């Protein structure tokens, strides 16, 4: 962000100062934005629908929009990364179980019959 000023006696307009992004209220702005994008990308495959996910993602981020303490922000970003891992695990398990059910039905029945008395 650039701050402009006019030199005395109606002189030229010159650059007074450049304020870099790191001076701004949210020092982890870039990380937070990337986290949001990554979660949004993952949300496309969410079982309850991409829209459902996007609504909740947005409200979750908006709820914390006034946090300024970098330590707090870092904690929230870490929580976001954890959610990413959870989602990846959810998607993998869903797919694995669907494939197992579809293609390994004999194995499933064998497993389900453990402990049942044989007549």
């Amino acid at each position, binding site marked *: 962000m650039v701050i402009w000023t006019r030199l005395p006696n109606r002189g030229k307009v010159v650059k007074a100062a450049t304020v870099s992004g790191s001076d701004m209220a949210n020092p982890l702005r870039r990380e937070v934005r990337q986290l949001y*994008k990554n979660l949004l990308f*993952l949300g496309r495959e969410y079982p309850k629908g991409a829209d459902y996910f996007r609504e909740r993602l947005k409200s979750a981020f908006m709820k914390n929009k006034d946090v300024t303490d970098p330590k707090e922000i870092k904690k929230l970003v870490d929580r976001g990364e954890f959610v990413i891992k959870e989602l990846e695990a959810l998607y*993998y398990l*869903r797919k694995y179980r*669907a*494939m197992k059910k579809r293609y390994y039905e004999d194995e499933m029945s064998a497993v389900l019959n453990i402990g049942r008395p044989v007549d």
Partner: protein
Amino acid sequence: MSRVLVGVKRVIDYAVKIRVKPDHSGVVTDGVKHSMNPFCEIAVEEAVKLKEKKLIKEVVAVSCGPTQVTETIRTALAMGCDRGIHVEVSGKDYEAMGPLQISKIFAALAKKEEASLIILGKQAIDDDCNQTGQMTAALLDWPQGTFASEVTIDGEKVKVVREIDGGLETIKISMPAVLTADLRLNTPRYATLPNIMKAKKKKIANMKPADLGVDMVSRVEVLRVDEPPTRLAGVKVETVDDLVAKLRANGTI
């Protein structure tokens, strides 16, 4: 060190409810979510794992089909493949494309790229053929390790633990070889957004089957596609006598 070819197929996403076209000529694919075949994901993961262990040098992802399959190749690149090859097949050729044509393409590519391993998924979730790996090995006269649930490279040989009826079979085959991935071979990594962005820099070469000397003529014609018979609703009975009477009427006893 060696080069590995991995086949990836673009199929209708596993979670989508399949609908048969009104004319029974096939399945509705327009506007339907597509993704990489789950067994192909496992194949890609295995190849990338081998590269990370420094047992192989380069992983090339290959897919055959119209322009949309480049999305699938991009996913494979995001998972860690080095480059991609898109064999362009469209229209009637694409509809008639099956394991025979694919295996001919892979055989030609394996020779051209001097690959030491071809890793494929054991079958595609749309056609459930479970033939491409086997046919490719036969065309190349290479050994095959199919239904692999564990792969270990030991010098010029590959130890493969195969999932078969009744248990596991361990075989040792020489390279070059064809492997097909089964469900428990590994846990595929997710292609996250940062990885997909990085993968945009990787190259995807474009070619046609004719460039590889492969004719796409199919010897198989699909006559009709029908939905499986709908499951009839269950009937609840009040007493055991009712159940016996119903089973008798049914002809079951």
